[in-house]
């Protein structure tokens, strides 16, 4: 077998199984042997890349809202999907919830560890203060960007705005619940997830505004 024939073999049969003639050629030709080893290594590395990745949850909400609006999804009353349904879906995604909770735990642990002792009690009282402040700032920046925008709004933008309203409603509910029942772990978990979702939504909206302007 010659180099050219080996090339045709790889093209038609792939890298495995190798024929006896191909094996023989590889044992004699250093260039082809290196090529084979390199490509086999590349394929092995490619197999390690994840074939599946978690998409952000807001994509499904946007798709569903679109499908309800254009009548592809039937049987739901009105154009607007009830907000509590959207949130039930948000928190069904366990990996998102776990990541969000883990993030907040790390942040709170960091805050507690880094603050002087006299400030610890204050941090325990309102561990979300810095998150709320950062989100407010982001929302303020987004409002400024929207004011400066050309005013062209797509269905996706409308859907994102609607989702943001839903998130804000839910955050208000969770905050009220946490204020009334500070020991309610579930409410805290929901609140954490809602903050995470709001951050994602704001970031997506700012990206869109940035690309439109």
């Amino acid at each position, binding site marked *: 077998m010659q180099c050219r024939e080996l*090339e045709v073999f790889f093209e038609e049969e792939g890298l495995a199984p190798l024929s006896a003639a191909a094996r023989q050629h590889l044992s004699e030709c250093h260039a082809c042997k290196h090529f084979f080893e390199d490509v086999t290594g590349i394929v092995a590395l490619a197999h390690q890349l994840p074939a599946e990745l978690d998409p952000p949850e807001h994509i499904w909400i946007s798709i569903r809202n679109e499908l309800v609006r254009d009548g*592809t999804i039937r049987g739901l009353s009105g154009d607007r999907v009830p907000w509590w349904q959207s949130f039930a*879906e948000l928190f069904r995604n366990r990996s998102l919830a776990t990541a969000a909770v883990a993030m907040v735990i790390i942040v709170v642990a960091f805050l507690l560890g880094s603050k002087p002792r006299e400030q610890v009690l204050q941090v325990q009282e309102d561990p979300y203060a810095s998150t709320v402040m950062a989100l407010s700032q982001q929302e303020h920046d987004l409002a400024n960007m929207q004011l400066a925008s050309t005013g062209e709004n797509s269905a996706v933008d409308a859907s994102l705005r609607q989702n943001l309203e839903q998130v804000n409603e839910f955050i208000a509910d969770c905050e009220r619940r946490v204020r009334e029942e500070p020991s309610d772990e579930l409410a805290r978990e929901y609140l954490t997830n809602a903050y995470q979702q709001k951050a994602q939504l704001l970031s997506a909206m700012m990206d869109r505004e940035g690309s439109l302007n």
Partner: protein
Amino acid sequence: MSEADAIRLAQAGDAAAFEFLYRLHGRRVYALCLRMVGNPSDAEDLMQEAFLQLFRKIGTFRGESAFSTWLHRMTVNVVLMRLRKKTLPVASLEETTEPDEETGGPRKDIGAPDLKLTGAVDRVNLERSIEKLPPGYRTVFVLHDVQGYEHNEIADIMGCSVGNSKSQLHKARTRLRDLLQEEVREQARNERQIAKTQTGQAR
């Protein structure tokens, strides 16, 4: 609920069935979009577009091919259309199936020592090089070597022959090797440059 049940219910407009299908295939479609365009914001847009097209046309699905193949075909079309609209240099299918060189034999860097990649590249290098592949090669490589599709499925998704899919995969792998070798050389050059500067400063 089985996939077949979900398709039937979705054809009747059932919300839960649409969600079932989205959850079943969404992670794979998102990974495909992300590897094809290389940025999460575009990948999200494309994924949304692909699923909207799919769900709006679900009434026409007759089951001649697997549902996932149909979905992937739609996704690949949406992605390739977007790439064509952008200013990125996009090689046509014909172009990407042309032989790279007429030298015969696996591509070698003439005049340069044959560079062995084993151990020199990691996933980051690979991801970066995949992004540099022409879209036709990239699609076949991602579908086959990352997502694990067989050539007959890829032929279905891309609307080409099995032979064409095999040939494109081989050329994609060969091109990827070239890109990675380039990257390793570039890295070595940079390291030499840094070492030279440090030596100069020490004197």
